[in-house]
C-alpha cells in the first residue's frame, strides 16, 4: 500500500495532537475556502436529494459527510504546508510551557539576560572600538608616523619643525602628511563674559583633506593661511558652534577671540568629529619654513596617507631610508648610538593598541559567562525534562517522530533564548550606558558606541546559538530510544536515569571549571590593582585641590609678570581659612599633559649621559618642571637632602635646582648631589654655547609623573622665577587643605579672579581625582571583570545547588530504604555533600588547568603580579570549593530529613 497507505496517517497522529494542543483552533485553518465550501455543499445537496421529501434528509446528509470544518482543516494543512502551521503550534505550546513554569522561566531568563546582556554591552564596545572603521576617507590607508630614540627610552617621539618639513619633502610613500598638536587650551572670549577655557587643536592645512573630512559650513584653512603671520583663522567643532553660536549658519567671517587674539571663523566641522580628542576649535599650526624651531624640539604628531598602491611595508622601508638620511646629515642630533629611527603605525592600531588587550579579555570573560549560563539552563532543562519524560513518551507512542519532538523541544529552548536575549538587550543597553559613562577618557570614539544593527544581529545570533546549545542536550537525551521504557519507569517513581544524571554532572563540572577560570582572572586583576594602589607615587594625594590656569601672551609677555601673577594668587590663597600650604607646578603629575627637556650636567662621567660635538657637557632627558615655593610641601613629596625653594630664589638670585633621588643616583652615584651644577639653557649668543648653571640645592623623592604603573624618567625642578623658556606660563596651583578640598573651590577661584578677572580657572580637581583618573582604565577592566566573575560564581552555585537538590529528590526512595535499613541522617548528609564535593573538585581541577594556560593572556593588564600568582591560584579554588559545599548543604540537610515510612508508602 506504500505511498497511498501512508497518506492517511498524518491525519490521525498530527490531527490528534493539534486538537490536544489548540483548544481554540487555528483560525487560519478553519477559515473557509470558497472552492472547498462549494464542493462540500454540492455533496450535501446530492446526499439530501437521496432522501428527498423525508424529514431527516438534512441530518442524514450531515451525518453522512461528517464534520465539514474538520475536512476543511485537513485539506488546508495539506495544501498550505504542515510545517509553518506546526511551528506556530510549537511556539504556542512552548509559550504555554514557559507560563506554566514561572520559576524555571524566571531563573532561565535571568541567567540568559545576564549572559547575553554582558555580551551585548561588551560586543558593542568591541565593535565600535576595534571593528568599526574610522570615520575618515579610506581610513586603512592613514598611518601615524613616529620617530624614536630607543637607547634613550623614547620609543615614540613626535616630530620637530625641520623633521616634519624633511619628511613632507623627501618621502616617497605618502600622498600627503599632516602635523598637528591637540589638547592645548585656549582662553575664550574676553571683555564682557566670564572667561571660558576651551580645548584647541593646531594642525597643518593638509590635515582635513588628508582625513577626507569636509566642514559642514565654510571651508578648511588653506595652505596660505597655514603660514606664520597668516594663521588667524579658526574652525569650530560642531558642539561649540551649537552652544556658543546657537548653530548660526552665517557664522563664517565672524570673529572669535582666543587667548585675547582675534581669529576669523572660516568653517564648522561635522558633528562627531573627534580626531585627536575633543578639540573645540582648530587653528593652523603655521610652521615657519624659513625659521624652523630646533631640530630637537619634538612637538608635533604626524599622520600620513599612503600613496595609492603603496603598502605599509614599502612605507616602512622608505621611512627607514629617511631616518638614515637624517642620521648622515645631522649626526649630532640622531647619532651615533641613540637608536634613531622613524616608523609608521596604522592609525587604528595607534588608537586601540592600549585598550585592545583589556577589551579582548573582557570579551572572553563575557563569553565564559554566557557558556556558564547556557550550562546552567541546560541543567535546568534536563531537570525539568525528567519530569516530562512521560509526556514525551506518550507523544512518541502516539506517532510523533523523533525529529518532531526534538523540534518541539528546540522551539521551547529557542523561545526561551529569544525572551532571554530581549531582556539581555535591555540589560546590555543599560550596561553600555554605564560603561560609556565610566570610560569617556579611556576609549576612543566613546560617543559612537551604541546598540547598532551589527550589535542587534550579534545578540540575535547569540540567542540562536545559546538556544540550540542548551536545548540540544535535553532534546537528544529525551528522545533517546532507550527512553521508550520511561512510562513504566516513571510509574515506579525513579525516573531521571543514570544517563541524565551523568549529563547533568558533566554540565555542573563545566560550570565550575569555567567560573574558576573567570574568578581567577578577576582575582589576578584585583591583586594587580592592589599592587598598583600600593605604589608610592612620591606624593600624598589626599586633601589637595588642584586648579590650572594659563596666562595669555598678549596680556602677560614673557618675563617677571608671569611669576608675579602666580605669586600673588598663591599668597591670596594661603590666607584663606582651611588652607595649609599652596604652591604651583608647570605640569602636574598624572595630569593630562607631560613634557620633557634635556638637562646638561657639569661634572659627571655617567654612562647615561649623551654627548654632542662642540659642547663640553653631557646631557640627559628629564621630566623638567617649574615650581613655586610651597609646591613640594603641599604635595608632601619627601625632601631627601638639602632644601626646598623659597621666596629668596628670584630671577636675580643665583640659579638653583632640585633633582629627584633617581637623578642623583643615576648621575652622581656615591657622590653628594648637593652643590653639583646642572643647566637647561645656554647664555644667549654664546659661542661655543655656555650653559647657565643652576646649583643643586635639594634632592626629593622620585615621583610617578605619568601613572602608578610607570616608573618614569629622572626629574629636575627649577624655580618658576628662573624659568628661561616661558615654560611656567601655564601652571597648576595645588592647595593643601585641612578639610574637604572641594569646599575651597569657589573661594580659591575668587582669589584668582581678584588678581585678574579675565583669567579662567580650569581642570579644577582634587589630587585624589587626578590620580583616580590615571587609574580609570585598570579600574574599569577590574570592575567589569569582577562583576562578570561574580555572576559566573553565582550561576555556578545555582547549578550545583540545582543538581544536588534534584539528585536528592530523585533518590528519595533509595534514601528512604537506606534509612529504613539503619543509615543515620549523618550518613545521608555525608553522602550528598560528598557527591557535591566530588563534582566541585573535578570542576576545580579542570578549571585550574584552563586558568593556568589562559591567564598568560592577561599579562598586559596586570601590574606587580605574575599571571600564575600563587595566592590567587590558592584562594580562588578554595573559594569555589566553599561555594560548591554551601550549594550542597541544603540538599544534604533535606536528604538527612527523609522519612523512610513516608517514602515507602508513596510507592
Amino acid at each position: 500500500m506504500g505511498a497511498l497507505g501512508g497518506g492517511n496517517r498524518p491525519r490521525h497522529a498530527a490531527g490528534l495532537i493539534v486538537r490536544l494542543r489548540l483548544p481554540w483552533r487555528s483560525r487560519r485553518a478553519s477559515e473557509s475556502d470558497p472552492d472547498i465550501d462549494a464542493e462540500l455543499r454540492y455533496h450535501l445537496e446530492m446526499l439530501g436529494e437521496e432522501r428527498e421529501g423525508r424529514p431527516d434528509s438534512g441530518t442524514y446528509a450531515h451525518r453522512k459527510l461528517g464534520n465539514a470544518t474538520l475536512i476543511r482543516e485537513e485539506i488546508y494543512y495539506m495544501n498550505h504546508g504542515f510545517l509553518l502551521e506546526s511551528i506556530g503550534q510549537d511556539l504556542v505550546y512552548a509559550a504555554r510551557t514557559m507560563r506554566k513554569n514561572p520559576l524555571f522561566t524566571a531563573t532561565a531568563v535571568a541567567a540568559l539576560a545576564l549572559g547575553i546582556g554582558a555580551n551585548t554591552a561588551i560586543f558593542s564596545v568591541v565593535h565600535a572600538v576595534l571593528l568599526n572603521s574610522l570615520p575618515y576617507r579610506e581610513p586603512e590607508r592613514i598611518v601615524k608616523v613616529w620617530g624614536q630614540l630607543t637607547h634613550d627610552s623614547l620609543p615614540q617621539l613626535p616630530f620637530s619643525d625641520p623633521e616634519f618639513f624633511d619628511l613632507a619633502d623627501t618621502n616617497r610613500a605618502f600622498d600627503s602628511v599632516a602635523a598637528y598638536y591637540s589638547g592645548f587650551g585656549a582662553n575664550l572670549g574676553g571683555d564682557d563674559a566670564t572667561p571660558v577655557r576651551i580645548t584647541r587643536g593646531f594642525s597643518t592645512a593638509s590635515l582635513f583633506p588628508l582625513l577626507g573630512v569636509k566642514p559642514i559650513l565654510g571651508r578648511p584653512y588653506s595652505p596660505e593661511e597655514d603660514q606664520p603671520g597668516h594663521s588667524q583663522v579658526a574652525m569650530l567643532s560642531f558642539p561649540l558652534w551649537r552652544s556658543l553660536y546657537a548653530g548660526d549658519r552665517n557664522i563664517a567671517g565672524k570673529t572669535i577671540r582666543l587667548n585675547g587674539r582675534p581669529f576669523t571663523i572660516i568653517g564648522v566641522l561635522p558633528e562627531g568629529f573627534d580626531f585627536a580628542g575633543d578639540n573645540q576649535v582648530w587653528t593652523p599650526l603655521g610652521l615657519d619654513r624659513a625659521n624652523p624651531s630646533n631640530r630637537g624640539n619634538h612637538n608635533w604628531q604626524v599622520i600620513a596617507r599612503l600613496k595609492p598602491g603603496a603598502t605599509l611595508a614599502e612605507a616602512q622601508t622608505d621611512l627607514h631610508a629617511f631616518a638614515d638620511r637624517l642620521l648622515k646629515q645631522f649626526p649630532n642630533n640622531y647619532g651615533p648610538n641613540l637608536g634613531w629611527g622613524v616608523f609608521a603605525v596604522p592609525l587604528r592600531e595607534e588608537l586601540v593598541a592600549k585598550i585592545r588587550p583589556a577589551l579582548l579579555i573582557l570579551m572572553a570573560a563575557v563569553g565564559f559567562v554566557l557558556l556558564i549560563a547556557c550550562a546552567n539552563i541546560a541543567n535546568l532543562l534536563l531537570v525539568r525534562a525528567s519530569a516530562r519524560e512521560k509526556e514525551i513518551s506518550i507523544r512518541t507512542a502516539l506517532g510523533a517522530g523523533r525529529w518532531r519532538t526534538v523540534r518541539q523541544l528546540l522551539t521551547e529552548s529557542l523561545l526561551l533564548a529569544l525572551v532571554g536575549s530581549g531582556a539581555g538587550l535591555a540589560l546590555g543597553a543599560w550596561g553600555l550606558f554605564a560603561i560609556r559613562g565610566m570610560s569617556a577618557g579611556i576609549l576612543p570614539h566613546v560617543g559612537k558606541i551604541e546598540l547598532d544593527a551589527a550589535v542587534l544581529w550579534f545578540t540575535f545570533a547569540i540567542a540562536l546559538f545559546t538556544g540550540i546549545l542548551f536545548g540540544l542536550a535535553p532534546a537528544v537525551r529525551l528522545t533517546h530510544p532507550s527512553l521508550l521504557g520511561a512510562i513504566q519507569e516513571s510509574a515506579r517513581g525513579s525516573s531521571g536515569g543514570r544517563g541524565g544524571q551523568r549529563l547533568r554532572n558533566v554540565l555542573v563540572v563545566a560550570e565550575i571549571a569555567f567560573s574558576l577560570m573567570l574568578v581567577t582572572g578577576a582575582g589576578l586583576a584585583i591583586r594587580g590593582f592592589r599592587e598598583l594602589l600600593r605604589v608610592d607615587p612620591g606624593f600624598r594625594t589626599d586633601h589637595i585641590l588642584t586648579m590650572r590656569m594659563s596666562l595669555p601672551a598678549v596680556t602677560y609677555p614673557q618675563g617677571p609678570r608671569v611669576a608675579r601673577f602666580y605669586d600673588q594668587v598663591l599668597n591670596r590663597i594661603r590666607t584663606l581659612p582651611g588652607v595649609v600650604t599652596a604652591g604651583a607646578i608647570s605640569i602636574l603629575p598624572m595630569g593630562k599633559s607631560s613634557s620633557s627637556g634635556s638637562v646638561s650636567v657639569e661634572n659627571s662621567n655617567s654612562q647615561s649621559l649623551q654627548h654632542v660635538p662642540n659642547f663640553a657637557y653631557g646631557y640627559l632627558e628629564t621630566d623638567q618642571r617649574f615650581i613655586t615655593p610651597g609646591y613640594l610641601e603641599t604635595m608632601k613629596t619627601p625632601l631627601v637632602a638639602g632644601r626646598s625653594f623659597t621666596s629668596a630664589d628670584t630671577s636675580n638670585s643665583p640659579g638653583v635646582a632640585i633633582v629627584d633621588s633617581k637623578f642623583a643616583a643615576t648621575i652622581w652615584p656615591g657622590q653628594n648631589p648637593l652643590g653639583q651644577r646642572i643647566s637647561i639653557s645656554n647664555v644667549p649668543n654664546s659661542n661655543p654655547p655656555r650653559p647657565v648653571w643652576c646649583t643643586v640645592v635639594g634632592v626629593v623623592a622620585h615621583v610617578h609623573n605619568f601613572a602608578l604603573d610607570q616608573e618614569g624618567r629622572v626629574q629636575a625642578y627649577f624655580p618658576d622665577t628662573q624659568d628661561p623658556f616661558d615654560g611656567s606660563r601655564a601652571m597648576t596651583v595645588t592647595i593643601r587643605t585641612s578639610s574637604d578640598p572641594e569646599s575651597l573651590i569657589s573661594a580659591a577661584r575668587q582669589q584668582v579672579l581678584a588678581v585678574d578677572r579675565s583669567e579662567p580657572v580650569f581642570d579644577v580637581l582634587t589630587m585624589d581625582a587626578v590620580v583616580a583618573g590615571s587609574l580609570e582604565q585598570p579600574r574599569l577592566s577590574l570592575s567589569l571583570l569582577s562583576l562578570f566573575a561574580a555572576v559566573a560564581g553565582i550561576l555556578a552555585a545555582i547549578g550545583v545547588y540545582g543538581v544536588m537538590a534534584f539528585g536528592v529528590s530523585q533518590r528519595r526512595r533509595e534514601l528512604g530504604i537506606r534509612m529504613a535499613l539503619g543509615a543515620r541522617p549523618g550518613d545521608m548528609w555525608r553522602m550528598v555533600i560528598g557527591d557535591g564535593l566530588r563534582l566541585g573538585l573535578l570542576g576545580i581541577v579542570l578549571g585550574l588547568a584552563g586558568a593556568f594556560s589562559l591567564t598568560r593572556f592577561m599579562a598586559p593588564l596586570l601590574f606587580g603580579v605574575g599571571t600564575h600568582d600563587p595566592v590567587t591560584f590558592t584562594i580562588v579554588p578554595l573559594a569555589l570549593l566553599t561555594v560548591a559545599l554551601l550549594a550542597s548543604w541544603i540538599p544534604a540537610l533535606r536528604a538527612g530529613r527523609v522519612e523512610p515510612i513516608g517514602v515507602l508508602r508513596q510507592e
Partner: protein
Amino acid sequence: MKPPLDRLELLQGTLEMMILRTLLLGPSNGYQIAKTIEQMSDEVLQIDHGSLYPALHRLEKRGWLAGKWSVSDTGRKARNYRLTAAGRRQLLQEKSKWERLAGAIARVMRPA
C-alpha cells in the same frame, strides 16, 4: 456513526486506490465517486464521505488527478476530477500490489 454489520470498513489506503479506479471510467465529482464505489461493491463498502475530500485533494496535489469546475447533469456546478497519465500509472502499480496482497491473504486464509 456505527457501521451496519453487513458493511465492511475500508482498509487504510484502499480508498485512494478505489478513487483512482472509479475515475478510469471517466471524469466524475466527489458525490458520484462515493456512490460509484458503494454501488460497485454492491453496497458492501461504506465510504466515509468525510475522508473522501481530503483524499481527493491529496491525490490532486500529487498530480494523479486534475480537478475542474463544470456543470453537472442536474444543472448544478460541481467539481469534476479526471485521472491524469501519472494517476493511471499509479493505479496500475497499486492494482498489482493489491492483487499480490489479496492473493497472498487468500492463500493464507483458504485452508480454514
